[in-house]
């Protein structure tokens, strides 16, 4: 659908940006990727997302849509083909719940590891990530019904919500030397992570773990450098 005017403002390293990219790939929609430079925000971004000034922003025929999960739902409702959200209303509510939990509690815990000022805070954050993964393992069992994805046979909303954090999860594992996705603790999620990452709609847009590690080290160095007051 080259005649469709679809642009995505984003950055390769951002897990939030990866969500609409996977969604558009699943729908077979072509789009122009407008990559932001780290450390500065383009005029277009500021104009398209005046409230949050953040990526991703999907611009469809000149109209901006913001917030990654809202964009994913928009993509699902606008283009036919692969269904991202379940068809049953209750299943949709459950999918939305887990996506909300992942963004509201789980990912901030992961981010909390790097942000922790004390050893105690760091360990608490690590504990929260493990607890969350256990919850998500149970959720996976219920949602997947024995199939490969949260969405069942095919990639769905929760797969996209959680799967797009896998790069950063693996990067964090490397940075702190702890294995979060452990076969002995969360075997279903381990297997799912492989399947998700290797899916054709995902593989090309999943950032490389080593590049994320480099990027994280660069940011950490920047924040730990003494400020000139």
């Amino acid at each position, binding site marked *: 659908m080259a005649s469709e005017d679809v642009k995505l403002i984003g950055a390769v390293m951002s897990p939030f940006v990866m969500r609409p990219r996977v969604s558009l790939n699943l729908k077979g929609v072509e789009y122009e990727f407008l990559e932001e430079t780290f450390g500065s925000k383009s005029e277009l971004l500021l104009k398209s997302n005046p*409230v949050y000034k953040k990526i991703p922003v999907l611009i469809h025929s000149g109209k901006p849509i913001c*917030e990654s999960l*809202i964009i994913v*739902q*928009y993509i699902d409702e606008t283009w036919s083909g692969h269904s991202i959200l379940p068809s049953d209303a*209750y299943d*949709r*509510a459950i999918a939305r*719940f887990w996506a909300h939990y992942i963004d509201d509690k789980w990912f901030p815990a992961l981010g909390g590891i790097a942000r922790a000022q004390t050893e105690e805070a760091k360990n608490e954050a690590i504990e929260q990530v493990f607890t969350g993964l256990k919850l998500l393992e149970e959720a996976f069992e219920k949602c997947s019904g024995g199939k490969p994805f949260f969405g069942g046979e095919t990639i769905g909303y929760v797969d996209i919500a959680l799967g797009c954090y896998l790069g950063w999860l693996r990067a964090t594992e490397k940075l702190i030397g702890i294995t979060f996705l452990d076969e002995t603790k969360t075997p279903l999620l381990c297997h799912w992570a492989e399947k998700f990452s290797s899916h054709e709609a995902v593989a090309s847009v999943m950032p490389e773990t080593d590049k994320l590690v480099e990027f994280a080290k660069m940011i950490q160095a920047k924040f730990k450098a003494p400020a000139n007051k």
Partner: protein
Amino acid sequence: MAQENDIELLDFWVSPFGQRVRIALAEKGVDYEYKEQDLMNKSEFLLKSNPVYKQIPVLLHGGKPICQSLIIVEYIDEVWSDKPPLLPAEPYARANARFWADFTDKKVYECGTKLWKLKGEEQAAAKKEFIEIFKFLEGELGDKTFFGGETFGFIDVALVPFVAWFYAYETCAKFSIEEVCPKIVAWGKRCMERESVSKTLSDPDKVYEFVLFLKKRFGVE
């Protein structure tokens, strides 16, 4: 044992999040059993129905729980689709509705809480932030009757319960919301003309009393 079509709502009287659900149910004319929860002493049923967050509101439909107020409102809208919709039909309008409802979730309650919990400079900063948040909302409302246009919809449901908290916020932080955001206050009054809203929102005096109780509990002067 819940019947297939039984609707129960686990809620707390003054919760703006619970009120969103009550308003949505009223708009759709749905009968349900309201179950007031003691949040200082949470029931087994609540903990079992929402083990992840252990919070209200929780809607149970035929015994199956749905959590998170905006998710519940979307569920209600989708299930009772024979009644006037809360979300628009067109995808872009839907994305816009979800964006502003989500904005309300991210910003209003937390900032409002700061207004009664903090003092001095920190409270002043929260006041500034509060006004900024509502100016954004006022910008989105414009001169429309409701956020969705002529019809009461998703964004209105998401935001209107907080109108009952305005008096408490104004009294604690000493400012007038009407002065800075007159369109929002006028919109609030229009919403109150709807039975679903007027019968659901708490009395502002009772909300203020509740805030004073919270202040005491948190040791805020």
